[in-house]
Structures are given as C-alpha cells and as structure tokens.
C-alpha cells in the first residue's frame, strides 16, 4: 500500500494524475488493485464513470501489478503456514493474483451495476416515502429538513449498504474458495507451531538486512529529493472562486529620503515664494516710481500748459 501511495504522490506532484471527486473510491480501488486492475477499465467503459484523469492513473495500475503479486505472495505464504498449517506451493502470489484479477473483471462491474441500480431506486423510494401524507401530518409544515434528510438517508443507506455487504461477502467467499482449493492440494507442514511461527516470521526478514536498509534509505532519499524538486513553489491549484486579489504594492517608505525630499520641496517652495514676493515688491516699487515720475511731470508740465 505504501509503495503504491508513494508513487501516487509523485505522480500527483508531477501533475500526471488528478483524482476526481470520487477520491476515496479511487484510492480504495488502487489499494485493492488485485481485483480492480481489470475491472476499473471495464467499469469506465461500460458506465462512463471516471475515477481520475491523466496518464498517471494508468501508470499506477501497471505499477501495482508486480507490487501486488509480491505482497499477495508474502501474505498468502504466512496464511498457509500460520492458519492452515500447510506448505505454501511455489508461485502462490502470482497464482492468487491472476485468479482474483479475473474474478474481479467479472464480479466488480456486476457489483457496481447492482449497487448503483439498487441505490438509485432506494433514493427515489425514500423521497416518495418522505413526501407521504402520513409524515406531512406530523408537523404543520411537513417533515423538517434535517429529519427528512436523516430519514431518507437511513432508508436508502441501509438498503444500499446491505446489498453492498452481501455482494462483497459473496466476492470474498469466492476468493476464499479459490484459496481453499489451492490449499487442498498442498501437503501439511511438518514443524510444530513454534517452528511455523519462526518460519513465517523469518520470511519477512531479508537475508542481507544491511543491504535492505541501505537500499530502502536510498530509495527514501531519492523519493524525497524528487518530491521537493518537482513540487511547485506556488500553489498549483489557484481556484477560480478564490483568487488572490490584485493589490498595488506601495513603494517602500524610506524616512531619511522622504525627509530630504520634503526639506528640498520646502526649500524650493520657500525660494519660489521669496521670488514671487521679490517680484511683487519690485512691481510695487516700479509702480510707485512710475507714479512718482508721472506726478512730477504733471506738476512740471501743467503750469507750462497753463501759462500760454
């Protein structure tokens, strides 16, 4: 599960896969890929359902095949030794994997169709029941919203869950039958219980533990480096609804610069005012002078003008 999940993260980071709304379902399908590896493409083709987009989803399923065969092999060998106390046959992981994948290809789409059909009809029926007159008379305004949702959900949820549980039980029992048949053909284990425990326990411990730890640490480092290298620095999903508002950035306030410029402006304005005042006083003086001259001339000229 973890191996598959690590690859899912890397593919999500690279933008090669985008799970759709049925995220939980897609993840579950990925983790139970021994039975879903063939059935998912069939469901997508038959019912037009999508669990996600991008080449990454396809890649994940291809990658899951060897991982699942190995994991099924370890679990099945443990089960044979500990629970059934029988010798596990060779190639157990592959044998169980292809059988479960084949059954899944037929059974899971059938389960999908039946559960969808039952759920759709149960929802319609529960809607009709909630609108029945008997319920309308419970209160003046009909059944309150919260109660109505709860009631409807309980009705169709129970029916749908019961059908899903029964069909899942049938599917698991079919797989159980296959494993039981395989176990019938294998010989009983010779060791006592303690010996069997030691055997299946040692199956999980590699011969060269140092090599395993080093390679695991190496893979971890590579995955971490890859993750941080490809992870976008800024958010890769800027939702249309909630984009960051564009704000004009004000220039940085520098007190000394601002003071200097203010002082300069004050000085220039003072100089301008001084110049204006000077100009005005010059004008006044000139006016006064010209007035004086004009006054003198009149006094000088007037008697002459008056004389003749």
């Amino acid at each position, binding site marked *: 599960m973890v191996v598959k999940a690590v690859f899912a993260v890397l593919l999500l980071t690279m933008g090669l896969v985008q799970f759709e709304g049925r995220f939980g379902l897609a993840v579950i399908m990925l983790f139970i890929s021994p039975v879903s590896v063939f059935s998912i493409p069939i469901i997508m083709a038959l019912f037009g359902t999508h669990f996600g987009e991008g080449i990454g989803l396809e890649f994940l399923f291809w990658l899951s095949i060897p991982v699942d065969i190995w994991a099924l092999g370890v679990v099945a060998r443990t089960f044979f030794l500990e629970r059934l106390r029988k010798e596990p046959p060779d190639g157990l992981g592959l044998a169980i994997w292809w059988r479960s994948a084949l059954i899944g290809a037929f059974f899971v789409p059938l389960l999908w169709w039946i559960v969808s059909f039952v759920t759709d009809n149960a929802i319609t029926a529960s809607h009709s029941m909630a609108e029945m007159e008997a319920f309308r008379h419970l209160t003046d305004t009909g059944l309150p919203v919260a109660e109505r*949702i709860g009631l409807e959900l309980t009705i169709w949820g129970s029916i749908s869950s019961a059908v899903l549980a029964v069909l899942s039980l049938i599917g698991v029992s079919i797989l159980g039958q296959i494993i039981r048949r395989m176990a019938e053909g294998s010989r009983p284990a010779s060791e006592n219980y303690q010996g069997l425990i030691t055997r299946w326990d040692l199956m999980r411990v590699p011969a060269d533990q140092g090599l395993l730890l080093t390679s695991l640490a190496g893979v971890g480092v590579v995955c971490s480096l890859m993750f941080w290298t490809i992870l976008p620095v800024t*958010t*890769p*999903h800027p939702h249309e609804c909630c984009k960051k508002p564009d704000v004009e950035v004000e220039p940085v306030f520098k007190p000394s610069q601002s003071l200097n410029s203010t002082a300069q402006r004050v000085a220039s304005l003072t100089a301008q005012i001084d110049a204006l005042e000077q100009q005005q006083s010059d004008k006044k003086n000139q006016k006064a002078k010209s007035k004086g001259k004009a006054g003198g001339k009149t006094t000088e000229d007037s008697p002459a003008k008056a004389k003749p």
Partner: protein
Amino acid sequence: MDIKHSSPAVIPDHQPSAIEKLVAFLDERVGLKEMQAKMLNEPIPGGSRWAYVFGSILLFIFAMQALTGVLLMFYYVPTADHAYDSTQYIIHDVDYGWFLLSYHFWGSSAMVVCVVAHMSQVFLWGAYKKPRELLWLVGLALFGIVITFGFTGYLLPWDQRAFWATTVGVEILDKTPVIGDFIARFLKGGPTPGQMTLSRFFVLHVMILPAALMALAGLHLFLFRVAAPAGPYSGTKEEIKAKTDYFFPRQIWKDMVGMAFVFVGTCVLALWEPVVLLDQAAPDPGDYHPEPEWYFLFYFQLLRLKIFSGEFGQFLGAVALPVLFMILLVALPFFDKDPERNIFKRPIALISWIAIMVVIVLFTVASVINREFLD
C-alpha cells in the same frame, strides 16, 4: 545482539572509530545503551500487530504538526488586521507555503482520525480494563486536547469560514450551565469575536495546548510502560507465548510503515485539495452558511434536529449529550469490571461501538446533503 561482543573494549586490536568514541562518551554520561535497551526491548504479548500502530502514528503526526506549525509561524501575524493577509501571503508568495499550510491543515484531520482509530482499538481490544484505567483516562484527556487543537486552529486564517465556525462553536459552549458564560467570555474576550479572540486562540493553539499535549503524552507513555501492553484478546496462552516478541524490530517496522502511509496520505490530500481561503472575516456572513470542520459536521447536523431546538432542546443537544457521553467514557473502566476482553463475547460493547460509528457516518453524510437545501 550481544553488546559485549561488539564492544571495542573486548576485541583486543580494535581501534574505535570516531562514532564509537562519541557513543561511548555519551553512554558513560547519559546511560544511552541502557535507555535504548529499555525503550526497544519491551515485550509485546502475542507479537507485533498492525492494530497497535496508531499510538506511534499519533506521536509522528504531532511532531509533523509542530514542525509545519513553527514554519508557518515565521510568516503568520496573529492580529485581526493582518492574519488574513499573512495567510494569503503564505499561500501565494512564500516558497512551498501553500504545501506547508495544506499539510498542516490535513495533518489535523489525520490526527483526529488516528485518535478515534486508537481509541476504537483500545475499546474493542478491552485494553482499558484493569490495570489500565489511568492510561484510558489520560488518553481521554489527550483526545480532548486534540479536538481543542482543531477548534482553536480553525480561527487563525481569519476568513469567513474561520470566523463563523468559531462564533457557532463559542455559542454552543455558552449554553453550558454555570461555567458556559465565563468560558464564552474568556474565549471571545469581548462581546463579538475580534482581536482578543484571535490572540487567545493563538496562544492556546501554539503554547498552552502543545505544552499540555507533550506533558500528557509523556504521562501516557509512562503509564503504558508501567501497565505493559495488553496483547491480543483471543488465543491460547501457548499461542500468545509462541508469538511474543520485542518492540524492536518488528513493531517498529510496522509503526514506520504506518507513519509513512499517513505522511504520504497527508501529502496526497495537500496536493489534491490545497487550502483556499474564503473572504476576510466580517460580522456579516453574507451568502456563507457557517459550518464547522468536517469531523464536527455530524454533531452540527445532530443539533439541527427539531428535538434539539428551543431552550431545553439546545441545552440537551449542546451540553447534556456530549457531557453525558464523556462521563460514560470516563466511567467505563470502573463499571465494566468483567475481565473478558474478547469483543465478540462483549455484545453490548460491540453494538455500542457500531451504533456510534453509524451515527457519525450517517449524520456527516446528512450534513453534506443538507448543504443543497441551504444554497
């Protein structure tokens, strides 16, 4: 492994490396090897199991929440006029800020899920029974702290969702008799949520709750080591003895796989659904319908039922029911004294657990459907 054989002192011509010298130096002063032996050589009756991984996962999540929280604090400003802008800055401008915030957000959900899973495992395994009563009680206190972490952290981005979820939450607390008014006034710090509320929630979230969690988690681990692991609830003595193993290496391996799974799962959620803020907090909700975080949705929907309307109904739903439930959980190890631990031989416990889970799932889904009626 025999430590003496690998010790550099025993092998005559062995020149200890720098690391060996450092380990020997520390061991002489701190008792490193003894501590390591005590921590790792804890016998687990019946051997390691995947069901036991949740406690270690919770410690890991807390460490990750602390790390991402500290990194977020470098940029977050806990004031009413800057909290929203600084959170937007983290999302849009800080390198990988969107990922850190989204990881922190989904990490809190992972913590709640793992706490419920851990409590369910302890309950179903009957591991709360004698002599582990105190362990159970401290675990309940830790559960309360985790929930409070989620509640206080929800306000910090200071958007409409945060503001109104907190307003509704504080109003629910206000309904508690005698102390409700004091708690609500203490949390809000005024008639309406504002700067004082944000400051108080911030201090609770980054100082008081982490300190309380660390202290109680330490006590929880101490009590766990004193009482020893409960082991499986079924199997003969011979089978359990045959499978008994030490904590290291198999349980540690399983714990590490569990931690890796949670880490990767949280990353997937952060990548798939990164945090997006709504409009800045305002006293007018506008078109927004206040709603708490998803793990409180079932309770929110439960309170919408007609039975919980009116003065008495509100008291019943908001105070009496949760308090009664917590009292039941606290008293559980003291009234359930039957030593039988097999869950299939404890029908009342099994039915109660299933009923609680069904109610949680049913009302959470109902709350999601209810959104259609509000829009």
